[in-house]
């Protein structure tokens, strides 16, 4: 890595500097993180400028949002909000994952179960389930159960369908291989079908978690003013816009980071064939 940079500099020094753009792009290509920095700077810069103009009185600058975020972390309100928000999220995702993956595998293995159950989840995945979130309060009030149910309603369909498709698209040659060595049905499922289906199942899990975040925010904004949703609603009501933006941005960052974390966990521990040497 370093040698190529030196080489680039050396040629640049001897020849007449080709042009700034080329030299820049060479530098950027050799250090990919420069692109990340440029990308972040560009958006945050635009945000800062838009806030300075300001394009709206309800549009704080990036720097004031950052300060507001630091304040909320220090005074503990952010930490407590996440404590409340992550509970139903984790619970809902765990239930959806366990239920969804087993249901998906069951449907993938049995034609009858597929016929009976798959259409329901095909409809539920394509349909705007958010419309049903308000119903949850009628039965379960505004507590943890209601929020967890909102998460499950949004996360379950995509997890079920992905697991089911994953099992359906297992490499038939591997299944034949297992049969040719007299593997039992159980061995076939545990040693071939589940491992081979797991990448697509994990993709479904990631989509499910993303949907779960949408669900928990919807529940907190709509039915139970607690957690991060309450932080957003409260600061909006007192016109503390920087704090409100900080809360919104934080949940987007948290969801991105947890999805990326899951992906790298999967690549690192579960998929040796994807690992870079």
């Amino acid at each position, binding site marked *: 890595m370093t040698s190529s940079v030196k080489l680039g500099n050396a040629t640049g020094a001897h020849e007449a500097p080709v042009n700034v753009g080329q030299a820049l792009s060479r530098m950027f290509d050799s250090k990919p993180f420069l692109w990340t920095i440029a990308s972040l700077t560009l958006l945050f810069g635009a945000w800062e400028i838009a806030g300075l103009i300001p394009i709206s009185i309800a549009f704080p600058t990036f720097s004031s949002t950052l300060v507001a975020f630091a304040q909320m972390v220090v005074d503990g309100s952010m930490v407590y909000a996440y404590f409340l928000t992550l509970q139903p999220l984790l619970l809902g995702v765990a239930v959806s994952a366990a239920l969804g993956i087993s249901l998906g595998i069951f449907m993938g293995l049995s034609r009858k179960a597929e016929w009976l159950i798959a259409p329901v989840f095909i409809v539920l995945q394509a349909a705007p389930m958010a419309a049903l979130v308000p119903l949850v309060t009628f039965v379960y009030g505004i507590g943890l159960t209601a929020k967890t149910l909102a998460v499950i309603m949004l996360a379950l369909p995509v997890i079920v369908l992905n697991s089911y498709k994953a099992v359906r698209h297992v490499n038939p040659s591997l299944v034949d291989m297992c049969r040719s*060595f*007299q593997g039992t049905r159980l061995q076939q499922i545990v040693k071939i079908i589940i491992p081979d289906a797991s990448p697509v199942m994990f993709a479904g899990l990631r989509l499910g978690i993303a949907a779960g975040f949408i669900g928990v925010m919807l529940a907190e904004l709509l039915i139970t003013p607690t957690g991060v949703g309450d932080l957003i609603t409260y600061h909006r009501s007192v016109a503390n816009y920087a704090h409100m933006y900080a809360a919104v941005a934080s949940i987007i960052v948290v969801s991105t980071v947890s999805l990326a974390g899951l992906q790298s966990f999967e690549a690192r521990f579960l998929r040796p064939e994807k690992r870079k040497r």
Partner: protein
Amino acid sequence: MQLSAIPAVQPSAPVTSNDPVVQVRSICKTYGDIEALRNIDLEFSRGKLTTLLGPSGCGKTTLLKIIAGLVPANSGEIRVNGRAVTGPGPERAFVFQDFALMPWATVMRNVAFGLELRGVNAAERKRVATRYIEEVGLAGFEEKYPHELSGGMRQRVGIARAFAVNADVLLLDEPFSAVDEQNRRKFQEDLLRLVDLEKKTFIFVTHSIEEAVYVSDRIVLLSPRPGRISQVIDPKIDRSASPDDIRRDPGYLDTVEEIWDGLRHYVD
């Protein structure tokens, strides 16, 4: 053919053709409206390598999978060591065209997979697998994953896995078709060495005439739609000669020509 009528040298395996290990009796197979195989009768001798050869669509892979017990026949019977076959069994092992290696498992686990399914303990699995990994020339690659191996090396894993379960009959479904030409030749030579070494019965499917003539004790030509036996050829080639000499042997060249004459009219 008669020009080089030197009998195949197989001193350590006293083989007679009336010692069939696999018997195929009037097998018929249809897929929907398509008749894949019609009334196939065949016998495979112990310790020999028999090739099923034919143009695509002649049902050679289907026949192999029926013998393996992976695909049910519509009528007819397969007998292995005199017992009728109802499904896959420990006396047969299959080598797959697309290798069928588990991408999440190391070479070691892939080779030992047949033993793992049988509940053999880990130490014994490792002992047996190590031996066959070495035999196919992959020593040192035990802890590698399939994606780190070339196509040719992957199929060596597939072959080692089939050997590791110590089956009497090895069924090879176009095992070298996904391997490049140079590696193919090496493979064919290695296969002859393994046939000699392991004293097993090999049933080999290929669409390559040269490959079939080079490796086979007997070639069964199938004709397409519906698949039937059109000819059985016993190449008379001195297999003790060097690989280059075999490929220049007039018997080898004549047999290739003879088969091509028989197949020519299926290709247009």
